[in-house]
């Protein structure tokens, strides 16, 4: 199947090109740009204030909860795509199946909502 | 558009389950009294579908069909599916269970209206229906056992519904324990069945029964007895009957649904379903018949003197269930199922009627009632019809079925059992008359109570009327003409003792004579009751004085509870004491030494339990390595067995 292989070879090459292009661009830029490093320049930028401590500390946890919800809905997507392409041939049966599936996930979303996990602050 | 109704059979238990889940999850917080409506609508759908399936089976000429939901267990040769067996027997049961449950759910909306735990009630009740339908529909013993245990659980929950009070709580425990004894029998029966037949599927088992009966008749008898022990537990037969009267501590609709119409009939259903086993089980069948007859008489005598309206009905239920087992025992399982169906109608009606009375008066003691006829006409008339059916007055439903059972006892040559049946019929008529008179007739004995009594709302009376229609007509519709009625033809292929044989043409002269005897007995019973309670001649008090010790014996229910307490439980205690001594000194002695040894080894092994996950992972990986080497060694042929 040269068609299949070729198509994905294109994809592969494009991925490679992306990396190579960025590298080349930055190298080219590195060749022409001036390099005068001073202590002030190298300091972390905090709107002109003296930086206090590093940034790598602890964070509020709600970032994690959104990532978690996203993962769950992303997993839903891997079932949705195949279903969407063939859902006419599955008919009502497939519709009910997917309905139950999504309903259960939405119940989870609703739970998160009620628990206040969707609040940002 | 033709719809495969039978294929939808799983929706029949499924809808009540969904209602139970919804009510259980959202009832307390949001739904409250709406739970009743949800449950009733669900049961309505379920009942409609159940009826549709009944007619579909009827239309298909009673062909059995298996509807598999999914494979439940598949281990080697042992395969159990979650599958429904839809045949005339289960279709009849489904229609009866779902239909009666529907009416009782509606009645409960009114009855439980003011109860704080209504959402709990309407969670357990549909859940119960779900399990009951599973039990009835199961196509194998294991799935049936699931339903069996499930109804036991729901019964426990519902008897103890008012768990704040000590009596319901104790009664629930009692029911649970007694049922456990029966369940033990069922378990033994199931295990033996599997060991003997290598399958638990009804059809596979029944196909092999005849062959196995040739070689191992004793095993078959033993299986039958084990199942019968299970049936006595669930259906409240001697010796495991005493939980049922106590179960009246639960709400009245529960008594009506579980302890009159459905769960207690599970035992009968089990025996009827297992007819091929029992038919080849020889003496087991005799045991069934005798136990049934004795229970019927025994419970009827106790019912004579009870003063609590629900207890009278409870003992009457035990007695009627005895009739059903009697029918099974004399080789007339169709009559048993027939009586089951009619009994479901009129007993549910009696219970709901009593519930209506209790709802109106908040009193259960019949001695304080009286004259309620004028206050509660609908309840009275429906109750009267149901009482007539119970007393087997033609042409009400009970007459046709009970008469057939008693007749079958005679024609099969069990004259003693027949006479017991007739005697019980007389007693039944008597206590029914007594109950109706004490409750509805005569002068009000407690005016405060009388003045506050009122007719129940339509949501309660309409189910009463519907059930009354059933109590009047069910016998005629299903069982006329006797021994060759609709239900006989419908069920003949499934549960007749000699499956496949054409039933002989019934001897109508004999039937008529026997029926006449039974009716006369019933009329005598009614007459005595009327004389004692309406005319006071002889005065009931005088009679009880004259009877003296017998009366004491009856009022105290033959001291069975005390007997169980003292003889069995004390005996058990003594036995356990001895066992304890053995345990404490000899077993524990060994154990103590072992423990010492274990401690010694353990103190050495403790170092392994570092609590460090990495070490555990390392052990797992080491195990993996061993597996790879051993399995890979065999697979590649480097190692040999």
């Amino acid at each position, binding site marked *: 199947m040269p068609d*299949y*292989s070729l198509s994905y070879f294109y994809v592969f090459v494009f991925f490679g090109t992306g990396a190579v292009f960025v590298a080349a661009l930055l190298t080219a830029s590195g060749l022409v740009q001036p390099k005068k490093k001073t202590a002030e320049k190298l300091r972390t930028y905090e709107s002109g204030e003296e930086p206090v401590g590093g940034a790598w*500390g602890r*964070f509020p946890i709600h970032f994690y909860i959104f*990532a978690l919800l996203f993962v769950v809905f992303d997993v839903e997507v891997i079932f949705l795509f195949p279903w969407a392409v063939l859902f006419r041939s599955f008919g009502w049966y497939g519709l009910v199946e997917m309905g139950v*599936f999504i309903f259960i996930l939405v119940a989870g979303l609703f739970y998160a909502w009620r628990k*206040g996990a969707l609040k940002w602050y | 558009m033709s719809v495969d109704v039978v294929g939808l059979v799983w929706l029949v238990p499924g809808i009540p389950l969904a209602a139970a889940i919804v009510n259980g999850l959202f009832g307390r917080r949001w739904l409250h009294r709406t739970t009743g409506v949800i449950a009733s609508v669900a049961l309505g759908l379920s009942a409609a579908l159940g009826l549709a399936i009944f007619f579909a089976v009827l239309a298909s000429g009673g062909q059995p069909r298996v509807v598999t939901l999914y494979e439940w267990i598949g281990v080697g040769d042992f395969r159990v599916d979650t599958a429904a067996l839809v045949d005339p027997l289960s279709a009849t049961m489904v229609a009866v269970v779902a239909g009666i449950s529907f009416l009782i759910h509606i009645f409960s909306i009114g009855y439980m209206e003011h109860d704080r735990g209504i959402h709990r009630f309407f969670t357990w009740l549909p859940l119960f229906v779900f399990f009951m339908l599973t039990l009835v529909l199961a196509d194998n013993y294991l799935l049936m056992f699931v339903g069996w245990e499930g109804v036991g659980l729901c019964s426990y929950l519902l008897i103890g519904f008012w768990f704040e009070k000590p009596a319901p709580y104790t009664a629930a425990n009692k029911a649970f324990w007694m049922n456990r004894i029966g369940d033990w029998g069922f378990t033994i029966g199931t295990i033996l069945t599997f060991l003997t037949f290598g399958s638990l599927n009804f059809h596979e088992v029944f196909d092999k029964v005849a062959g196995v009966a040739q070689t191992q008749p004793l095993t078959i008898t033993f299986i039958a007895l084990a199942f019968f022990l299970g049936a006595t537990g669930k259906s409240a037969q001697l010796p495991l009957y005493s939980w049922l009267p106590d179960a009246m501590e639960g709400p009245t609709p529960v008594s009506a649904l579980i302890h009159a119409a459905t769960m207690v009939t599970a035992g009968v259903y089990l025996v009827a379903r297992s007819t091929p086993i029992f038919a080849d089980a020889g003496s087991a069948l005799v045991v069934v018949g005798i136990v049934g007859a004795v229970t019927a008489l025994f419970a009827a005598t106790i019912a004579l003197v009870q003063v609590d309206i629900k207890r009278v009905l409870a003992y009457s239920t035990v007695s009627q269930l005895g009739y059903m087992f009697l029918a099974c025992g004399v080789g007339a399982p169709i009559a048993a199922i027939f009586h089951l169906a009619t009994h479901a109608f009129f007993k549910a009606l009696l219970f709901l009627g009593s519930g209506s009375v209790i709802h109106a008066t908040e009193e259960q003691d019949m001695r304080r009632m009286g004259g309620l006829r004028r206050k509660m006409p609908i309840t009275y008339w429906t109750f009267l019809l149901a009482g007539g059916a119970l007393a087997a007055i033609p042409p009400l439903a009970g007459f046709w079925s009970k008469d057939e059972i008693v007749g079958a006892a005679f024609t099969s040559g069990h004259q003693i059992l027949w006479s017991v049946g007739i005697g019980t019929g007389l007693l039944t008529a008597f206590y029914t008359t007594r109950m109706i008179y004490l409750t509805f007739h005569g002068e009000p004995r407690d005016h405060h109570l009388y003045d506050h009594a009122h007719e129940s709302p339509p949501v309660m009376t309409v189910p009463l009327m519907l059930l009354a229609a059933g109590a009047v007509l069910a016998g005629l519709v299903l069982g006329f003409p006797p021994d060759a009625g609709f239900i006989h033809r419908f069920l003949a292929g499934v549960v007749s003792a000699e499956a496949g044989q054409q039933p002989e043409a019934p001897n109508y002269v004999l039937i008529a004579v026997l029926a006449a005897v039974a009716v006369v007995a019933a009329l005598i019973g009614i007459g005595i009751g009327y004389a004692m309670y309406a005319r006071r001649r002889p005065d009931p008090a005088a009679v009880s004085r004259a009877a003296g010790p017998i009366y004491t014996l009856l009022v105290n229910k033959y001291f069975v509870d005390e007997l169980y307490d003292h003889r069995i439980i004390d005996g058990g205690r003594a036995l356990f004491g001895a066992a304890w001594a053995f345990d404490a000194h000899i077993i524990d002695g060994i154990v103590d030494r072992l423990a010492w040894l274990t401690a010694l080894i353990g103190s050495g092994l403790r170092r392994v339990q570092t609590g460090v996950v990495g070490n555990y992972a390392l052990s797992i990986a080491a195990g993996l390595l061993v597996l790879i080497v051993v399995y890979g060694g065999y697979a590649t042929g480097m190692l040999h067995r």
Partner: protein
Amino acid sequence: MLDFLGLVVFAIFTIMIVGAGLGVVLANRVTTSALLMAFTFLNMAGMFVLLGAETIAAFQVLIYVGAITVLILYGVMFTPQTPRAYGLFFQKQTPWGAVLAALAALPVIVVAFSFHDAKTVAPPGGDLNALAIAVFNSFAFPFEVASVLLLAAMVGAIVLVKRESPAAPPAAPLRRSEPPR
């Protein structure tokens, strides 16, 4: 020539997968491990493409690179560690574990080379339809169970993470102009 190209691509993927996989285990910064893990996953998707399973490859990138790696990066960021000597990144039992893994790996890899190709090889690509039919017809029940599993994971993780008192109002009044964080 296409076959040769395929071989080259396969070799690249293999080197990347094994190299990046080793990097995950050996790197002394957790963030590096995470990035290399994502890279391994990406190359694994390439392997799937080579096998003709384009849909699985896309799902691989979607789930592993797009979702799971982000989640793990969050986990890395939420659990900062003080820098320390390289040896301390490993457990005390390291030599045992390494030896054990190597011992177990050897026979398995040897056995792996004994597999021969089967006769029937489906044409590559277009596996989306077959997958959909299999999932929604033969595996309908596991499919529904999967949603319950996800629900359980979601609820469990939220409960675990949101353990701090949820209803405690802040002591100071929130001014409207103050941007919520």
